[in-house]
């Protein structure tokens, strides 16, 4: 289980997280929704140990990770797969080498690595792109290679930062199915950050909404759809009118 306790984070003058509390159960898929720039990715990066909080604690199965040394944190991070918003593929490596990167650290033999790479690329609909460099791939293809890289070494937890952004609707649904499949077959715990509500409803066991640096609601997709919280209502209906105000110039 992952437990986030009273997490605070400030970047210069920007107070991003103002006391986030969240429990993520083993084997569930939880989706964090919220407006652009509200701190969803920042929260995700804290959970993986890529950022240190100003205040607060994060427990993974009773281990408090914010106080771990660099080496201990490195070992702990091997339990995680992470799909980055901008894919973050290594430019100097081919798609196949990108997917194989984490496997080399897990001491798999070359034959198994080759098979794993081929299988993972196949799962995301990209069989045969092993030798292509990221610069020659489209945005959607990069995202799928990054997803293949994140799932290649069978992590216990997978963090998805905008997994379906930039994909066509059919491929987006295929990725949703893949996330569901991973949860059902491998019992992977998934933490998803997305704006894509249809995806969130489909893949999530629970949905949390982050607003003003705090989790303001947490519930099943059905509970979220029926919520009486005005902020959540406005967000899921996508209306400009409501308690969430955008700083826009009049047009």
């Amino acid at each position: 289980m992952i437990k986030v306790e009273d997490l605070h984070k400030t970047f210069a003058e920007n107070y991003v997280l103002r006391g986030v509390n969240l429990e993520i159960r083993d084997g569930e898929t939880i989706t964090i929704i919220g407006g652009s720039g509200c701190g969803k990715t920042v929260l995700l990066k804290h959970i993986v140990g890529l950022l240190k909080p100003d205040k607060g604690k994060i427990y993974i199965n009773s281990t408090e990770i914010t106080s771990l040394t660099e080496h201990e944190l490195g070992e702990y991070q091997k339990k995680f797969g992470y799909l980055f918003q901008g894919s973050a593929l290594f430019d100097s490596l081919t798609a196949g080498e990108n997917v194989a990167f984490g496997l080399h650290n897990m001491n798999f033999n070359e034959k198994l690595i080759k098979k794993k790479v081929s299988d993972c690329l196949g799962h995301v609909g990209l069989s045969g792109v092993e030798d292509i460099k990221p610069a020659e791939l489209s945005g959607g293809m990069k995202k799928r290679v990054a997803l293949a890289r994140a799932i290649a070494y069978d992590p216990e937890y997978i963090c998805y930062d905008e997994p379906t952004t930039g994909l066509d609707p059919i491929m987006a649904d295929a990725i949703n199915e893949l996330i569901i499949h991973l949860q059902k077959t491998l019992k992977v715990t998934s933490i998803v950050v997305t704006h894509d509500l249809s995806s969130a409803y489909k893949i999530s066991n629970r949905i949390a909404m982050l607003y003003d640096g705090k989790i303001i609601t947490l519930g099943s997709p059905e509970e979220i759809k029926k919520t009486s919280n005005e902020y959540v209502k406005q967000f899921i209906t996508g209306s400009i009118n409501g308690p969430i105000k955008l700083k826009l110039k009049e047009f």
Partner: protein
Amino acid sequence: MIKYISNKFYNFLDGLSKGVTLLYQTLLYMFKPPIDVKNIIDQLFEIGARSFPVTALTSFSVGMVLALQSGSSAISVLNEPLYVGTIVAFSIVKELGPVLAAVVVTGRVGAAITAEIGTMKVTEQIDALRTLGTNPIKYLAVPRFISLVIMLPLLTAVSNVISILGGFIVGVYKLDIPSTIYWADTLDFMDIEDLFHGLIKSVCFAMIIALVSCHKGFECHGGAEGVGRATTSSVVTVLVLILVSDYFLSAILVAMGIG
């Protein structure tokens, strides 16, 4: 004004402490297995072999101009080109060779290191390395540090030979110094310590280039503009540090009796 100076001073101390930390971590991970031999060989080739043509060209040119200037000055003062080989050899081996090779490598390699690591930083590739169980310092800084510390002294040694050869050509064919006299001037006063003097300095310059270039890359933020800023800052900082440290290194080495 006082606030501006204190900010600059704080930034200098902050950068210095981060540089020392990076040096400590680089040395720590350098000896921690597994050693990424393939990555180190790639960097040796990139830093050494690919820097050779431009280093050779500039060294040859500097050797020639040094011989021409010292020869023509000697002719105007003493009516004959005395000790041109000695002046060229000492200037090159102890001073210009290490500095020139370091400046060329800073422009060609240091800037590329900062731009590459900086781009990786702003596109989250450094974060991706961490999530894949790879320490970015071990994967990125260590191979570059090792390669620079090996290749810059080698480039300096080759640069010394080429510069002296350039000086020899001008001395013999332009200033009409007999070749035997030119070689005697070059070698008679030169000790092995003089050679070490330059090579030790080039090792220090290599460490400065590696640490500053990697540090500026790792600290980079703010997209493409940030990468550009970091690269400029990296090159300027390295050049200033090389030229300033050159005096102190020379003073220390001379005091120790090395050259």
